[in-house]
C-alpha cells in the first residue's frame, strides 16, 4: 500500500506523476520503558523481550503499516499487563502508521474508558463504527459509555442496532434494562432484564436489578425471590479483541489470575486448567497449589483436590494461608467421613490462626459429633 508522510493531494499527484511512491512514515516514538522491577521474572522477561524486538525493528528502519502493527502488538502486551500509559502511546503510534487496522483505535478507546475519559473513548469507538457499523462489541461498548455519560438518547439506537444483529445479546438487554430502571420504567426494565437472564441464567447480578424493579412494581414476592437469587456475576458477551489481550500475559501469576477470573465466572474447567499451568511453572508456589485445590474441590473432584492441598501444606505458608488450607483440607476429609484427620487438620487451622472462627466452629461440631467436649 502506498503511504505518504505528507498526504496532500498536490504531493500525491506529483509523486504519482513522477512514478515514485512517497516515502513510508517511520517512528519517532522511543520504546516505552516502564518500571518492571516489581513484576514476576517471567512477566518481566516477556515484556523486555518484546521491547528488544521493537527496538530492533526501529534500528532496522522499518516503516509504515508493518511498523504500525508492531507498535500495536507491543501496546497489546503493555495493556495485558495494565501498563496503560505505555500501551496508549503504542496504540497512538500504531493508529498513525497503520490506520487500516481498527484494533488499535479500539484498544485505545478502552484505555481512555479506563481513565474515565468517556467522551474520548466514545469518539474513538465512533471511528471504529464508521468503518465497521455492524460490529456488535463496538456498538455495545459505545452504548455503555453514552449511557454512563447520561446520553441515553445516543445509547438507545446503538443498542437497538446491536439487538437487530444479535436479538438475544444479554448485555444489550442489560443496558436497556438499566436505562429503563433509571428512568422509572420498571416494566420495561423487567422485560429486558428477564430477556438477558433467559439468555444467560448464570448472570446473577441481574437478579438484584430485577429485585429492585419488581419491588417498584409492587410485586414483593418476585422481588424477594430475585433478591435471594442475587449474586455478582454480570452478563457477558463475546468480545474477541479484548479476549485476545487476556491470553497475552505469561507467568504463574498470570495463570492464577486467569484461573481466578474463570472461577468467578463459573468456568471451573478453564480455571482448573489455568491453575494446573501455574503449578507446572511454579511447583513450589503455594498460591498455585491452593487455588488448584480450591477449584478441584468446587468441581466436587475431592479425590484430586486432597493430594493437591496436602502438597500445598507441605510448603512454607503464611499463618493465615496455612489456617485456610488446613481448614479446607479438613473439611474435605470430614466430607469423606475421615473425622480423625479432619479434626487434626482443623486443630492445625485454629493453631495457625486462632481467629479462624469457621475452623473453630467446625472443630467444635466435629468433636461434639464424636462425643468429645
Amino acid at each position, binding site marked *: 500500500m502506498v503511504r505518504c508522510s505528507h498526504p496532500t493531494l498536490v504531493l500525491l499527484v506529483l509523486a504519482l506523476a513522477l512514478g515514485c511512491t512517497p516515502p513510508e512514515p517511520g517512528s519517532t516514538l522511543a520504546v516505552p520503558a*516502564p*518500571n518492571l*522491577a*516489581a*513484576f*514476576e521474572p517471567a*512477566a518481566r522477561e516477556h515484556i523486555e523481550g518484546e521491547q528488544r524486538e521493537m527496538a530492533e525493528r526501529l534500528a532496522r528502519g522499518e516503516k509504515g503499516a508493518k511498523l504500525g502493527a508492531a507498535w500495536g502488538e507491543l501496546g497489546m502486551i503493555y495493556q495485558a499487563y*495494565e*501498563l496503560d500509559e505505555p500501551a496508549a502511546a503504542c496504540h497512538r503510534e500504531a493508529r498513525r502508521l497503520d490506520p487500516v487496522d481498527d484494533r488499535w483505535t479500539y484498544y485505545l478507546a478502552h484505555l481512555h474508558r*479506563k*481513565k*474515565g475519559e*468517556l*467522551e474520548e473513548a466514545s469518539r474513538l469507538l465512533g471511528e471504529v463504527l464508521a468503518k465497521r457499523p455492524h460490529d456488535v462489541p463496538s456498538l*455495545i461498548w459505545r452504548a*455503555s459509555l453514552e449511557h*454512563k*455519560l*447520561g446520553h*441515553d438518547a445516543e445509547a438507545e439506537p446503538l443498542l437497538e442496532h446491536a439487538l437487530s444483529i444479535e436479538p438475544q445479546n444479554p*448485555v444489550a438487554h442489560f*443496558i436497556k434494562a*438499566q436505562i429503563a*430502571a*433509571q428512568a422509572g420504567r420498571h416494566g420495561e426494565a423487567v422485560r429486558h432484564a428477564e430477556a438477558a437472564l433467559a439468555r444467560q441464567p448464570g448472570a446473577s*447480578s*441481574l437478579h*438484584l*436489578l430485577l429485585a*429492585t424493579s419488581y*419491588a417498584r412494581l409492587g410485586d414483593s414476592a418476585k*422481588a424477594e425471590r430475585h*433478591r435471594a437469587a*442475587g449474586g455478582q456475576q*454480570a452478563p*457477558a*458477551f463475546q468480545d474477541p479483541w*479484548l*479476549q485476545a489481550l487476556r491470553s497475552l500475559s505469561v*507467568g504463574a*501469576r498470570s495463570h492464577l*489470575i486467569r484461573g*481466578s477470573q474463570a472461577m468467578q465466572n463459573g468456568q471451573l474447567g478453564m480455571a482448573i486448567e489455568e491453575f494446573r499451568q501455574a503449578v507446572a511453572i511454579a511447583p513450589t508456589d503455594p*498460591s498455585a497449589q491452593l487455588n488448584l485445590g*480450591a477449584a478441584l*474441590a*468446587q468441581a466436587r473432584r475431592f479425590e484430586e483436590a486432597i493430594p493437591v492441598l496436602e502438597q500445598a501444606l507441605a510448603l512454607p505458608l*503464611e499463618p*493465615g494461608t496455612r489456617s*485456610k*488450607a488446613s*481448614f*479446607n483440607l479438613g*473439611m474435605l476429609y*470430614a466430607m469423606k467421613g475421615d473425622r480423625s484427620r479432619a479434626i487434626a487438620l482443623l486443630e492445625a487451622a485454629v493453631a495457625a*490462626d486462632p*481467629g479462624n*472462627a*469457621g475452623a473453630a466452629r*467446625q472443630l467444635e461440631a466435629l468433636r461434639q459429633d464424636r462425643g468429645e467436649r
Partner: protein
Amino acid sequence: MAPVPAPLFRWPPLLAGLLALACGEAASPPARSSGSPPQATPWPAFRDVASAVGLDFVHLSGASEALYFVEMMGPGGAFLDFDNDGDLDIFLPQGHALGPGRGPALPADRDRLFTNLLIEKGQPSGRLAFRDVSEQAGIGALGYGVAVATGDLDDDGWVDLFIAQWGPDALLRNRGDGSFEEIAGQAGVADAGWGTAATFFDADADGRLDLGLANYLRYGTSNHHSCYAPNSAPDYCGPTVYPAEADRFFHNRGGRRFEARDFGPGAVARPGLGMVAADFNGDGHQDLYVANDQAENDLWLGRGDGTFREGAVLAGLAVNGAGRVEASMGLAVGDPDGDGDEDVLITNLRGETNTFYRNDGGGLFTDATVTTGLGPPSLPWTGFGTDWLDADGDGRLDLAVANGAVSIYHERISPQDPRPLAEPQQLYRNQGAGRFRDATAETGPDLARPGVGRGLAVGDVDNDGDPDLLLVECGGPVRLLLNQAPPRRWLGLRVLDGPGRRDALGARVEVRLASGARVTHRVHTDGSYASARDPRVLLALPEGETVAAIRVRWVDGVEETFPPPPLGSYALLRRITPRR
C-alpha cells in the same frame, strides 16, 4: 466480556468459595463540560493552612514492603468543640508501626487533639491557630486508630469521642475540664474488630445516644496473605480475601453503659466502611445505613424502639443501578436536590463511578448517577471521604471527595515512593437541576494536590460562615483547607437537645425563607469516611432573602418553631418542649 468494569483483582479470593462449599452453608442528560452555564457566584479557592496554623499532624501508616492491609485504609479525623468555647477543635487518630510484635509506642504514636485558639477564654482572638493539647488532655497511644465518631454519650454537655481502631476500640469521655478518660471497657464498647466507621444516634428516641459501629474484616498479621496485581506485581489484597467482621449496635442504657444488641434477622457480616444514621424512609425513626466493600450495602430501618429490620435491596440502596456491588467507602448523606429528603452519595473504587442514589420519597431510591454528571469524573480515582457543602454560597450543596488508591500505581514506583497510591482530590460544583461538574481545577492547587486521601470532614473552622475542609491523608500530613470565598450572608445554628445541652444529632432543621423556599438540614456529625464533621447547621442566603422561621423536628417527633436569629453568627437553638 460485559461493558461493566470488573473490580480490581487481588489474589487469592478463592479459598472463601471453598470454605462456603465445605461448610455447606449452603432522565435528563448532564450538561457536557463545554456547555456549562455561567455561574452567578464565584467559585472559591481552598488554601491549605495546616502548617501555618500549627496543625503538624503526619499520619504514621506503618507501611512496609509486607503490604499489610490495614496500613492503607486510614485514618479519618474530626471537627469538634471539645472545650465548648465556640470554635472547632480537631482530633486525629494515629497509626503505628506494623508487623509481629509491633505496636504503639509513646509519644509519637499517640492520637492528637488540637485546640483552636480562634476563641480564647470566651473572647475572639482574631487568629486561627491550633495548639496540641493531647498530653494535657490525657490522650495517649490508644492503638491503631482508624475512625472517629463524636457525640455526647452521657448528656453532660461535653462532646465525647469514640475511636474505631484496628483492635479494641476506645471511648474517650470528656470530663469537661479539658481532659478525657478512656472508658470503652467499662462502657461495654471495646469491640475488638477492625472498626472503620461509627455513629452516635438515638435509635429509640429515649434521649440517650446509642452507638453504631461498622467493622471491616477479620484481619491481623497472623492471617495476612500475599496478594498480586493483575500485572503480577505484589499489591494490597482486596476485601474478598478475608472474612468480614460483623457490625455492632450498642444500646445506651444510661450511666455510661452500653449493651450490645443484634441488628435483627438478615444481619450478615459484611465488610463495612461507611455508616450514617438518618431517617431514610421518612417514617420519623432513625435508620442506619452501612456502606460495604464489594458486598451489598445494609439499610437497617429503625422501628423507633431500638430494633431494626433490613431494607436495603427493596429500598434500592443495596447495589447500584446495574445490580452490582461496589467498593462503597465513604458516604455523603444530605439533600443536594433540595426536595427535603436525604439523598446518598457513595464513593467507590477506581473503575467504578461514585454512585448517587436519589431519594424518590417513601424510602425508595434510584441510582441517578448518570443524570448528575458525578460519574465520569470519578471513574479514574478511588474515593474515600466525602461530604456535601455549600462551597460557593449559592444555596446549593456541592460535593467534596478525598481520593487515594488502594492498589499500587506500579508505573510510578520510585525510591522516594515505593508504594504510590496518591490521587488528586476533587470538588464538584452543584449547577442546579440535579447536575454537577468537576470544578476542582478552579479551587487552586491545595485541594487538588495528589495525596492518599482518606478522611474528610466539613466544618467552619474560622467561624466566617463558609465551610472549610479537613482532609486526612494516609501516611501523610493533614490538610486544613480554608474556604477563600468572599463574605456571604449566612445563618449558623447550633441545635441542642436534652438537659445537658448536647448537639441534637438526628434532629431535622427546616429553615423557612421569606420567599417561601424551605431548606432542610439534618443535625449530624457522621458520614464521610472514618470522620466526624461540624455538628452546626450552616446556610448561605442570597441577597434580599430573609429567614421567616426555623422549625426543628427533634428525634422523638416533637416539633418546635423558633424565630429567626441574627445572621452572620452562630445562634443556639435549645429545645424547650419536654421529651415525649
